[in-house]
């Protein structure tokens, strides 16, 4: 373990002497390697190590948080003193620490450190080759690789102590294709809470080739139309729509302040009966999974919406305490320098009964969003937006002309009610979710499905 039990006890007690009825220490040691290749050349290779601790003291609804580098005892005790002072009025008790057991493990067959950097370079070169070989109009390929091994340790005044080593590996490809002054881009990425074995299942060459294929397709694209249309979301990437459209509004920090359209609506119908939305941080090896969350709570599967009915919210310890419930294992932080907040892990819509062909075939005129480039939501209003990097027109039940420059805009609660077909071809995708200035790995997924009446924001009226 990063710190010994006695020292952690001491730090927690020190914080509570100054103030607070709950105190916590979080320690982290994170090493990572980042490589980037562009213009066919390996341009950057960097590696490094960050170590540090944060101490948190909580009194009622007030939180005081202090972080510091390293594991040196004096610095830790000083952080504890400052954290306790921040909430003053102390007196909380300290329980003996006991190590949390259980939770889903994320087996790593091949550690990143088991492969030499030169071997990792080959992965990027293969992705680059895959992109270049996809067509002569490929002008540029940017390949990025990162691996991170993070050891975390958390202990609190209630006696919870938990530790986990998290290994994540990710490969991303951005490809630019050009034709007669037109430039289009394509993107593809893979990643998991696992080791180097992910490249045995999906070759880097295919990641580059897929990104290039998207960029090349978009060279033939026409400007997207404007106005309300039926939108078919291709499996996988479309999950980000639900992440934005309702996921953020189901995080307990927005809910407890009434700053979410879903506040106070548990038990009500908030979506079409075809929609079951789940957040599950306990899927083995998945990008957004962990054995424990960043407050030491074992992660779990939480059904948020079941057949259209709102079942519950995502909680961290503090918001759960305020709401007199228990944490759902959604307390997450970017690093030891950030306080935990309620966050999604892997969030997805469950598969339905239709086939993807049926969903498209039943659409007379619509917009087929095949790859999404991310989005944004205002949880208070539910209004969301997301960019479509690869889209097509659907005419007479079949996929036709590629369309460029479209953004979809809608209102979360309305869009959920308007899901009218769900296919059986479920797939997950990976991303980095940003909130309050903190980025954390998040997975999202869904089967191909159709939403009636989203606004497509193109340039053709």
């Amino acid at each position: 373990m990063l710190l010994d039990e006695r020292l952690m006890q001491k730090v927690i007690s020190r914080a509570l002497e100054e103030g607070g009825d709950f105190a916590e220490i979080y320690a982290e040691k994170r090493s990572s390697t980042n490589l980037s290749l562009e213009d066919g050349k390996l341009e950057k290779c960097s590696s490094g190590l960050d170590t540090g601790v944060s101490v948190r003291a909580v009194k009622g609804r007030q939180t005081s948080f202090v972080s510091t580098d390293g594991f040196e005892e004096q610095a830790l005790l000083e952080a504890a003193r400052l954290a306790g002072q921040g909430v003053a009025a102390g007196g909380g008790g300290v329980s003996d620490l006991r190590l949390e057991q259980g939770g889903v493990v994320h087996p790593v067959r091949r550690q990143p450190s088991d492969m030499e950097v030169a071997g990792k370079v080959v992965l990027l070169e293969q992705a680059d080759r895959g992109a270049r070989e996809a067509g002569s109009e490929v002008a540029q390929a940017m390949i990025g690789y990162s691996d991170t091994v993070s050891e975390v340790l958390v202990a609190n005044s209630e006696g919870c102590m938990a530790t986990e080593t998290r290994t994540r590996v990710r490969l991303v490809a951005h490809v630019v294709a050009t034709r007669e002054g037109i430039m289009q881009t394509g993107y593809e990425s893979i990643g998991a809470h696992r080791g180097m074995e992910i490249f045995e299942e999906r070759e880097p060459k295919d990641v580059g080739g897929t990104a290039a294929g998207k960029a090349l397709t978009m060279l033939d694209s026409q400007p997207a139309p404007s106005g309300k249309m039926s939108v078919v979301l291709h499996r996988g990437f479309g999950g980000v729509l639900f992440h934005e459209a309702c996921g953020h509004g189901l995080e307990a920090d927005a809910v407890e302040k009434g700053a979410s359209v879903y506040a106070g609506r548990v038990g009500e119908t908030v979506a079409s009966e075809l929609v079951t939305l789940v957040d599950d941080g306990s899927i083995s090896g998945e990008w957004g999974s962990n054995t424990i969350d960043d407050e030491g709570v074992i992660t779990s599967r939480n059904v948020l919406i079941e057949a259209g009915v709102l079942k519950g919210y995502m909680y961290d310890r503090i918001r759960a305490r305020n709401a007199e419930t228990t944490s759902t294992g959604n307390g997450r932080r970017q690093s030891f320098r950030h306080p935990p907040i309620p966050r999604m892990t892997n969030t997805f819509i469950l598969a339905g009964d239709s086939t993807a062909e049926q969903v498209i075939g039943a659409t007379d005129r619509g917009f087929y969003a095949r790859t999404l480039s991310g989005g944004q939501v205002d949880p208070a209003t539910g209004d969301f937006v997301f960019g479509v990097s690869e889209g097509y027109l659907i005419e007479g039940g079949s996929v036709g002309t590629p369309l460029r420059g479209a953004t979809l805009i809608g209102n979360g609660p309305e869009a959920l009610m308007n899901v009218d077909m769900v296919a059986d071809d479920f797939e997950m995708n990976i991303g980095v979710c940003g909130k309050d200035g903190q980025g954390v790995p998040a997975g999202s997924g869904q089967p191909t499905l159709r939403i009636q009446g989203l606004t497509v924001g193109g340039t053709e009226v």
Partner: protein
Amino acid sequence: MLDIAKKALAYAEAADVEEAEVFVTRSRSTSIKVYQKEVDELASNTGSGFGIRVFRGGSVGYAYSSDFSEESMAATAAAAAENAGVTAADEFAGLPEPPGEVSQMDIHSPRMAEVSVADKIGIAREVEAAALGFDDNISQVEQAAYNEAEATVAIANSRGFAGSYRETTCFAFTMAIALRDGQMQTGISFTTGREPGQLDAAACGREAAERAVGLLGAKQCESMTCPVVMDPFVAAGLAGVVGSALTGESVQKQRSLFAGLEGKAVASGVFSLSDDGTHPDGLASAPFDGEGVPTSMTMLIENGILQGYLYDTYSGRKDGRPSTGNGIRGSYRGMPHVGATNLRITGDSLPLRELIGSVDKGFHVSEVSGIHSGANAISGDFSVGAAGHLIEGGKLTVPVREVTIAGNMISMLKSVEAIGDDHRWVPFGGVVQAPSMLIGEMTVSGR
């Protein structure tokens, strides 16, 4: 700090490399969140670290650590040298020439440390109170926050450069929620400075409330093609995307919509854009950039004509030009990369009232969303979510939400008809000084 940098440099130079550089930062930050007058969260961070960049046979390697022990310095230097073993050799790679004199800059205020935490909490409380007091329709303030950071930066390299500076920045931010007839609308605002005394908490709270209340009753409008007025928040977001495409690196790598357009018209004659890392009011100002090159003022687009690009040492050498002092360093964890400092939209301006008054039927945009996913600096495609008001007969009328505005970025820049006299510094899209802008024609997608 400079001593630490020099010590680490000695380790780096001892490795088998031709050139070496050490970048060190130490920062202290505090963030205060207030909710219903009480402190919700008080967070303080102290952090420091160093990064070593080495060049060997034209290849670059990088490694970093937050551990300043001698063993760690030696291990980090060794890792940087090892990393240089796998990157491609490049004739343009290397450290910058040592500059002559580096001028000091007034970007650190001792006042920030002197103001008590209680007074800083008071700023966040004042922001919240000003928002709540603005209008009965304000149901609550979801976030009222005060944030500050003090940082020391030091760079030492094997070409003899050794420099350091200290800086302070602070800001207050808020999001107000207005509620009427079951409809919620939100509005945000912020105020920035080098020390708490420069913040205008009351104005920040009022503006957020005004923006939220102004959108009450908003609904989708019809799809249309019309003139669009972007307010400074929105114009800044657009400038940030344009600035990211105006780097020598993105042009050299064929991933800029501005590639090959130097000397050509890329915007209307009323539009100018510059990057100025020396501007006294810009929070991104510093005496030198992330590789020790003095910052400068670079004209990017002047009266519509593309003048040039932003460079760091490497991309400058590739184009046979000097670095413009735009080697940006996000933290000690990363190598420098080309990026903007303080972007400024300038040009002959119209009073804001005249600018809006000149539009018979159009759309005034006060909020955009999805810039990171909807604005593509490579293809130039631009389509983002928007909210604001219709302009009818030169006046703001019906509030509008859930629509998008779209166009091609160069076409948009070319159809800028006027810029307003309401310039202000905005922390969106980087650090940008932006006015309102009237764009002759964009597509608004709604019903």
